[in-house]
C-alpha cells in the first residue's frame, strides 16, 4: 500500500476541468498492470511503481509517450510486443476513443480474451508471426504451449496414428540405461572457458601463486596452477519417429528415456510431420505411464518425414529458448526426408550456428552396406560433427566406447 500512496503523491495531472485525478489514473494504471499480468506478462510491484514514477516526468496526454513509457517498463521480450500493443489498445482505447480520455473513470473493460484471440489469429500483424497463436506469446504458459504439437499446416499429408507401447521390456531397458550411464558424461560435458585451480593444470594461477608465496616474503617458490573447468552441457534430442524409423522406435524411446533420466536439463522432441515436445513425459518416474502419455500426445507416429520443416519449426520458435551456444543437439533419424532438401540444408545451417555440436545418430548406419546416398543425408552431413550408428544395444555400447568427450 505504501507503494501505492507514493505513486499517488508523485502524480499530479489536471484534466480539462482542472480537477485532480491523479489517484484515479494511478488506479487505472495498476488495473492495467493486473490485466497484463493476467495475460502472462511479468508484472511486478517494482515495475508498476516505475511505470507510475515515469508518469511524473512526462506529458501523459500524449498517447504515444504514455504507451512507450508503459512498454519499456513492462515488456521484456520482443515477442511480447504485438500482444502488448493489442492489450494496450483494448484497455485504454476500448472503442478507439481519443487519447485525451486516458484518465477516464469508467470501469476497465472486462478481459476481452476472445476478441484478442481472434485479432491475433488473423495473423496480419507482422511477417514471422503468422503461425504464432496467443498462447505462444504468454511466457507464463510456455509449458503448456510447448506440449502442443506445432505444425498446423500438414494435415493433408500426415498419417495420424497412436503407437501402442504396451509391452515394455524391463530387462532391455535396464541394460540400455546402464550403457547410457557410461555414455552420458561424455556427451554432456565440455571444457569451460572458466578456470579452476588444479594441481597439474598447465596455466599459472597468478592470484593463488601470489597469495601462497606471501609467506616467503615475495619470492615465488611455489607455483599454483589452474585448468579449464569441465562443465555440463545442455542436451537437446530430436528424434525421428516417422514410418521408416518404426523398426527402431522402441529402442529409440528407451534411449531417449534413459538419457532424460540420466542427465539433467535434457529437452526431448519427436517429429515426423510435426514437432512434439515430450520432455515432461520422459522425466516421469517409470516408463510405462510415460509411454502411454507419449502415445496419446504424439499424433503423427509412423507418419511421413518432414525433417526440414520440423527443424524449421524448432529453429523458429524453440531454439532461442532451448539452445545456448553450449548446447549439444542430437538428431536421431535415417534422413529419409520427403520435404524440400533446400529447406533441410538451410535449417541445418541455422541449427549449427545456434548450437555447439550436432550429433546425428543414424540407425541405418548399422547395416554394413549402407552408404549415405539419399539426398537428405547428403545435405546434412556437412553440418554434423558426428555421424554415428545407433540401432540396438550393441551399437550403443560401441558408441559409448568410441565417442570421445566432446571437448575442444
Amino acid at each position, binding site marked *: 500500500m505504501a507503494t501505492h500512496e507514493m505513486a499517488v503523491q508523485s502524480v499530479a495531472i489536471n484534466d480539462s476541468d482542472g480537477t485532480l485525478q491523479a489517484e484515479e489514473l494511478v488506479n487505472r494504471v495498476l488495473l492495467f498492470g493486473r490485466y497484463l499480468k493476467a495475460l502472462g506478462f511479468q508484472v511486478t510491484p517494482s515495475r508498476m511503481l516505475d511505470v507510475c514514477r*515515469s508518469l511524473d516526468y512526462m506529458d501523459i496526454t500524449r498517447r504515444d509517450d504514455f504507451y512507450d513509457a508503459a512498454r519499456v517498463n513492462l515488456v521484456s521480450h520482443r515477442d511480447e510486443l504485438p500482444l502488448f500493443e493489442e492489450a494496450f489498445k483494448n484497455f485504454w482505447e476500448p472503442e478507439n476513443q481519443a487519447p485525451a480520455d486516458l484518465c477516464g473513470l469508467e470501469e476497465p473493460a472486462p478481459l476481452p480474451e476472445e476478441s484478442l484471440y481472434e485479432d491475433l489469429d488473423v495473423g496480419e500483424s507482422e511477417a514471422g508471426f503468422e503461425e504464432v497463436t496467443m498462447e505462444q506469446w504468454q511466457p507464463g504458459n510456455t509449458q503448456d504451449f510447448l506440449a502442443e504439437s506445432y505444425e498446423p499446416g500438414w494435415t493433408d499429408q500426415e498419417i495420424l496414428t497412436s503407437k501402442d507401447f504396451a509391452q515394455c521390456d524391463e530387462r532391455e531397458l535396464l541394460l540400455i540405461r546402464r550403457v547410457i550411464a557410461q555414455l552420458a558424461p561424455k556427451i554432456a560435458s565440455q571444457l569451460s572457458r572458466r578456470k579452476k585451480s588444479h594441481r597439474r593444470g598447465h596455466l599459472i594461477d597468478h592470484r593463488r601463486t601470489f597469495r601462497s608465496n606471501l609467506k616467503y616474503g615475495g619470492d615465488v617458490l611455489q607455483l599454483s596452477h589452474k585448468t579449464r573447468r569441465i562443465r555440463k552441457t545442455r542436451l537437446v534430442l530430436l528424434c525421428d519417429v516417422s514410418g521408416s524409423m518404426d523398426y527402431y522406435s522402441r529402442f529409440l524411446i528407451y534411449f531417449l528415456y534413459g538419457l532424460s533420466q540420466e542427465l539433467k536439463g535434457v529437452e526431448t522432441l519427436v517429429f515426423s510431420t510435426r514437432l512434439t515436445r515430450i520432455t515432461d513425459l520422459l522425466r516421469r518416474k517409470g516408463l510405462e505411464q510415460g509411454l502411454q502419455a507419449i502415445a496419446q500426445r504424439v499424433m503423427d507416429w509412423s507418419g511421413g518425414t518432414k525433417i526440414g520443416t520440423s527443424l524449421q519449426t524448432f529453429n523458429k520458435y524453440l531454439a532461442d529458448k532451448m539452445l545456448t551456444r553450449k548446447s549439444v543437439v542430437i538428431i536421431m533419424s535415417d534422413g529419409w526426408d520427403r520435404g524440400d532438401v533446400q529447406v533441410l540444408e538451410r535449417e541445418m*545451417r541455422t541449427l549449427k550456428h545456434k548450437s555447439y555440436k550436432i550429433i546425428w545418430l543414424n540407425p541405418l548406419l548399422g547395416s554394413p552396406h549402407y552408404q549415405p546416398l539419399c539426398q537428405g543425408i547428403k545435405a546434412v552431413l556437412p553440418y554434423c560433427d558426428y555421424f554415428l550408428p545407433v540401432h540396438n544395444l550393441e551399437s550403443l555400447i560401441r558408441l559409448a566406447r568410441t565417442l570421445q568427450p566432446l571437448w575442444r
Partner: protein
Amino acid sequence: MFTSIEEVQRLMEAQSYIADRALATTLFLAIKLEKPIFLEGEAGVGKTEVAKVLARILQSRLIRLQCYEGLDANTSLYEWNYSKQMLKIKLEEGGGRSRDELEHIIFGEEFLLKRPLLDAIMSDGAAPPVLLIDEVDRSDEEFEAFLLEVLSDFQITIPEIGTIKAERRPFVILTSNRTREIHDALKRRCLYLWLDYPTFEKEYQIVRAKIPGIQQALAEQICSFMQKLRQINFYKRPGIAETLDWAQALLHLNQAGLVPETIRDTVGCILKYHEDVEKFKRDEMERVLLEF
C-alpha cells in the same frame, strides 16, 4: 539534466544520431528513473552507438565492457596487479617497514587494476559515466547472475579494501543481439527496448546526417534498395551500419546512382555471408533492380 523528451531527441540529432521518439522516451526515462536500458535488436541497428552518443551528450566518460563467453568477475571487476605488488615487496626489503604497513600499501588502490565495472562504480568525473555492457548475450549465465548483483545496488566488496559504493549511479546500457535469451530477472531491472530496422525516412535521414557529402538521389536509391533487400530472407540481413558502409564506398567510387555492375562489385559491404552473397547474385539482384 534533461527537461523533456524533445530535448533528448534534439541533442541526439545534434550528434547526428536520428532517434525516434520511443528511443528518446526510453533514454529520458532511464535518466529520470535511474534504471539501466536493455537494448535488443539485430546487429547493425545502432545499439552501441546509442551509448556513445549519450556519453557525448552528457559530456561524460564512456566505459565499455565487451562481453564474451567465459567473462568472469576478475576480468570485469578488478584484479590485483601482482607483478607490481611483488616488485614493491622486493624494493621494500630491508626498508624497515612493518609487515602490516607493507600489506596495507600493496593492497591499496595503487595496486588495483580497475576493470570496467569497478571503474564505473569508482568513477568521480563531473558527470556520472555511461557504462556500456555490450553484447551481453555472448556472456554465459554465470556472468549474467553476477551482473544482476552489481546492477541492483552498484556496490562491490573487495575483501582487502572493503565495500565500495557508487556515489552516483552510472547510466547503464546493455545491448544484445539476441543470439540467446537473457534471463528475465536481468531484463526486468531494465527498461527494455527493441530496436528495429529503420523505416525508409529514418534511414534516409541517417544517411544524410552521417555522410554529409552524399547526393540526395544516391542516398534515396541506396535507402530504398536496402529496404527491399531486408525483405529477402537472408541469413544475416544488413543493418544501418551496412547501409552507411555501402554509401561511403559508393561515394568514394564516385557513383552518382546505382548500377548493376557496381552493386555486384560492392555487395560485400552489405552482405557478410557467402551464402547470402551467392543467393543475392543468383536469384535476387535482378528482381530487386527491376522494381526500381
